[in-house]
């Protein structure tokens, strides 16, 4: 039978869901919207049942996109044809409003089980629930007191579910109104809600004894939401989070890349030489590696986000930050996704799912790739080392470091500017009500946290991984294939050159791959766009590197070293020196301060990342937003780079 898991936010619903289903769960989207739909199976007494976990709600009448999902699902129910049971989870400390939601669901005439969760916290809050009274009044509904975090009451809950599966009793206590009220009829909903609340309130006062305890002012909140210390503390947490995502992920990322490199080498010895071997070893395996390499960052970021959410801190951070990002059309909840995009936009964009308002979520998701991510660092540092002199200014400031800082700042300013413009342009289809509950602090529940991490990795690999893999094989193919006759001629010419004949074996290989890249389809692309990128100060070599760096921005550096392998330079093998020594036909330097700055600015803005596009598609449900991002950021990159090249 189908079990619908419904309940208030912060009532421990997810904990209960995880405890009932274990790893037998899957995450998807509700039809037509990007709201997580979690469902899973559980088996008891030899029968398998499906459980659907719905977003937390206070009422069946929606005020947000997430709540709309629940309304639609309840509206579509057909108990005659497909019997189901509602498992209503409420917080024992806030039973009154729990009973309110319960009353709405009861009047829909679905058989229900009422799970009153977190009884331990309620006891500490001085709440005593008389289960016998509740059970007497709600004659047709089993009532279970429980604490899902430690598994208390789980057996009783299973028995109660079994009971309802056999008997399917419908609750008659409330019957304030039958069926659903039209969504547009706010005033009827309000009247209904008032009657309902009275009835729920009566039941509450009959069945609950509250000993008024003088609430001690929480000293933890005194610090964590303090007007000054609170921000200081939040900054510390962010720095820690950022550092962790950044540094802890580098080892497993290297390991993944090394591991796949090894597999690719191993297989290339095993498979017969030919197009199939090349496709597998140079196209598919590096492509898979390029997907999996994001897992450490995703895992770490969501580990920390889930930790902050589960402990109750996140709601405080949202509370503190809301005012600062509101002028830019964002929500306090946008801060963590946005700042974590400075490590990598992939987990950053995935984290925007926590933003309830669709407009605020879209803005955050849209501007996140403008924050300079860690994959831009190799590009920035290479170009800085080439065009920015290593000297100190103002006595102590390192000029190269200052430029790097300026690039980061430019990204942040661009993100906020685009957000501000979007805030002015986009229509708000529903008035945004920022009304959030700040839960009590709780020790984190590790199982919940690990389940979140696991879900996010699964979603990324299964739903974005395929696209990333397919597109990276395309890029590999265009950079490794080209017109055969032309490539043969080019190789023949190379082999007659003095530099080639006198070179060692590995140097010869480098020269060959450079020539092959130049005469590949990607090389043709680079030369084809040269007239377009000439006003930015780039030649076809940079064009090729820009094209190939769609795989990942850091590929820019690798591609340039391949192309420059055969640049005739005296002695030095270092890419930096080769770039510095390259001369134009008239003898002037090719790579100048102007073209360097132009290139760095280009990389600040341009959405040079297939994986980001794939994830934005998954998170918005269509290609529309990623294509707009690609074009808009591309235009900003072109305009910015053009301006810089002309100015410097």
């Amino acid at each position, binding site marked *: 039978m189908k079990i619908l898991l419904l309940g208030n936010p912060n009532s421990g619903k997810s904990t209960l869901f995880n405890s009932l289903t274990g790893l037998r769960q899957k995450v998807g989207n509700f039809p037509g919207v990007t709201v997580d739909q979690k469902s899973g199976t559980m088996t008891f007494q030899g029968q398998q049942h499906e459980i659907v976990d719905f977003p937390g709600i*206070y*009422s069946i*009448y929606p*005020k947000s996109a997430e709540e709309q999902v629940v309304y639609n699902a309840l509206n579509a129910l057909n108990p005659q044809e497909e019997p189901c049971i509602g498992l209503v989870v409420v917080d024992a*400390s*806030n039973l*009154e*409003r729990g009973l*309110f*939601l319960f009353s709405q669901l009861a009047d829909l005439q679905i058989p229900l089980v009422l799970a009153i969760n977190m009884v331990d916290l*309620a006891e500490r*809050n001085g*709440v005593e629930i008389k289960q016998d009274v509740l059970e007497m009044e709600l004659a047709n509904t089993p009532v279970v007191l429980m604490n899902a975090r430690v598994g208390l009451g789980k057996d009783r809950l299973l028995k109660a579910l079994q009971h309802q599966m056999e008997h399917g009793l419908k609750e008659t206590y409330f019957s304030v109104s039958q069926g659903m009220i039209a969504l547009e009829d*706010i*005033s009827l*909903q*309000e009247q209904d*809600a*008032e009657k309902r*609340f009275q009835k729920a309130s009566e039941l509450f006062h009959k069945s609950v004894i509250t000993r008024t305890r003088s*609430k001690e*002012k929480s000293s933890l*909140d005194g610090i964590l*939401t303090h*007007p000054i210390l609170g921000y200081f503390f939040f900054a510390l947490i962010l720095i820690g989070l950022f550092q962790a995502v950044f540094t802890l992920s580098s080892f497993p990322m290297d390991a993944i890349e090394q591991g796949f490199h090894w597999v690719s080498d191993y297989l290339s010895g095993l498979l017969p030489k030919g197009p199939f071997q090349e496709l597998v070893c140079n196209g598919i395996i590096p492509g898979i590696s390029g997907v999996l390499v994001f897992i450490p960052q995703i895992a770490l970021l969501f580990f920390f986000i889930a930790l902050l959410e589960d402990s109750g801190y996140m*709601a405080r951070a949202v*509370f*503190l930050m*809301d*005012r*600062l990002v*509101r002028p830019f059309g964002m929500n*306090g909840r946008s801060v963590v996704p946005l700042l974590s995009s400075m490590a990598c936009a992939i987990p950053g964009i995935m984290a925007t799912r926590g933003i309830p308002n669709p407009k605020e979520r879209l803005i955050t998701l849209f501007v996140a790739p403008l924050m300079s991510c860690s994959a831009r660092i190799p590009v920035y540092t290479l170009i800085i080392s080439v065009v920015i002199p290593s000297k100190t200014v103002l006595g102590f400031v390192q000029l190269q470091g200052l430029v790097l800082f300026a690039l980061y700042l430019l990204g942040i300013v661009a993100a906020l500017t685009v957000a501000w413009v979007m805030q002015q342009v986009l229509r708000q289809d529903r*008035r945004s*009500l*920022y*009304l*959030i*509950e*700040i*839960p009590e602090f709780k020790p984190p529940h590790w199982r919940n946290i690990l389940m979140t991490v696991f879900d996010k990795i699964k979603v990324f690999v299964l739903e974005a991984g395929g696209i990333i893999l397919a597109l990276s094989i395309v890029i590999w193919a265009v950079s490794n294939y080209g017109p055969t006759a032309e490539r043969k001629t080019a190789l023949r010419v190379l082999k007659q050159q003095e530099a080639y004949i006198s070179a060692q074996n590995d140097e010869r290989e480098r020269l060959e791959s450079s020539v092959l890249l130049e005469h590949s389809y990607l090389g043709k692309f680079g030369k084809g766009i040269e007239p377009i990128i000439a006003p930015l100060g780039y030649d076809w070599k940079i064009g090729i590197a820009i094209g190939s760096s769609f795989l990942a921005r850091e590929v820019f550096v690798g591609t340039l070293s391949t192309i420059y392998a055969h640049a005739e330079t005296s002695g030095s093998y270092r890419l930096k020196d080769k770039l510095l020594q390259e001369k134009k036909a008239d003898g002037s330097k090719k790579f100048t301060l102007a073209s360097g700055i132009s290139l760095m600015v280009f990389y600040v803005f341009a959405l040079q990342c297939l994986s980001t596009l794939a994830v934005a598609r998954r998170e918005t449900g269509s290609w529309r937003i990623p294509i707009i991002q690609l074009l808009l950021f591309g235009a900003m990159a072109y305009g910015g780079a053009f301006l810089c090249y002309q100015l410097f």
Partner: protein
Amino acid sequence: MKLSAIPKWGKAKIKEINHPLLRTKLLEMGVVPGVEITLMMRAPFQGPIAFQCGNTNISVRSEDADFIIVN
């Protein structure tokens, strides 16, 4: 007096909420006229405020809190 005007740790009783959507939503969360609340937190620069009602802390933006009248 407006909810946004009470000081930190100040106690008050909800009198009325002059905004239909906010009124319904708060009702669903258990905040109804007559109920006692305590102002718990206040974010700087006219940011959100948070008040305690029963065993829960609810935070609203200060411009929304202007619709909530207390005494």
